[in-house]
């Protein structure tokens, strides 16, 4: 266990190149959003929330799949490193889904005149957030021996909600706007800013994910040390 802690000490939580690339990309993204991209003619300046709202949703979907696939790998291989990755991905999913829903609400208030409506898109996105908040609440409450398995099952179920969120405004009539990327409803500058925003958000997510995964490993090391200290105490008593 000492070896594991030493290994965690030797490696930086966040590679310098990744942190640097994310910081640079964030600055360029802000420049594109506030200085470069043209203002949308009907919605006005508030439409620029879209360049953070959609990338945050994209990252939440990616995090969901990374968490789900890691959970499946954990169930197959029983290697705790997959459980750590799954936990890190799912917690970051909650953060980016909160940003996604929050920015959507701040766009909806001036454009629709309401903060929220229970249409298929918004409801399925809320359900996704709710499922993963439940995952984070269940995790510390589950028995230690079964915790990773129980959480893996919950997160595989959560992954099934992503296609529902993605397809909801294609399958149902929703108040949420229809997809604009493939329909050619965006000017080239808007498209560039959106895709750059997605790449930026993915870099930022990778930074947060690597930091969170390291904490999950430290948490596991602390739990193992506590268990061994208790075993040693039991031996001394005998």
């Amino acid at each position: 266990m000492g070896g594991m802690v030493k290994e965690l000490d030797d490696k930086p939580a966040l590679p310098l190149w990744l942190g640097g690339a994310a910081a640079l990309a964030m600055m360029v993204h802000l420049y594109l959003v506030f200085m470069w991209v043209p203002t949308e003619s009907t919605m006005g300046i508030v439409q620029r929330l879209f360049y953070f709202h959609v990338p945050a949703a994209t990252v939440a979907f990616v995090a969901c799949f990374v968490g789900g696939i890691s959970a499946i790998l954990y169930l197959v291989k029983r290697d705790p490193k997959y459980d750590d990755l799954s936990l890190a991905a799912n917690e970051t999913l909650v953060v980016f889904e909160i940003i996604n829903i929050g920015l959507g609400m701040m766009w909806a208030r001036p454009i629709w005149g309401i903060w929220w409506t229970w249409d298929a898109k918004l409801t399925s996105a809320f359900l996704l957030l709710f499922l993963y908040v439940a995952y984070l609440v269940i995790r510390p409450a589950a028995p230690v021996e079964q915790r990773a398995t129980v959480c893996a099952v919950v997160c595989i179920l959560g992954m099934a909600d992503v296609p529902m969120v993605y397809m909801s405004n294609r399958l149902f009539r929703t108040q949420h706007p229809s997809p604009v990327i493939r329909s050619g409803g965006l000017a080239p500058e808007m498209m560039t800013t959106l895709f750059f925003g997605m790449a930026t958000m993915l870099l930022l997510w990778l930074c947060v994910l690597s930091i969170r995964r390291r904490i999950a490993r430290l948490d596991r090391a602390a739990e193992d040390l506590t268990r061994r200290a208790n075993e040693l105490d039991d031996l001394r008593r005998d």
Partner: protein
Amino acid sequence: MENLSWLFWGYAAAWAVIFVYLFRLSQKERALRRKISELQEAMEDRWKQKKA
């Protein structure tokens, strides 16, 4: 420039969520490292006592 305040507060809130989360993570890492070093010291003491 209508609705500029929505844009400003939207971006400010999004960045605030990210920074608060990162701050919380750094605090958690610090607490875990402290706990691990305390546990390691306690384990070493117990081994020494056992050998003695």
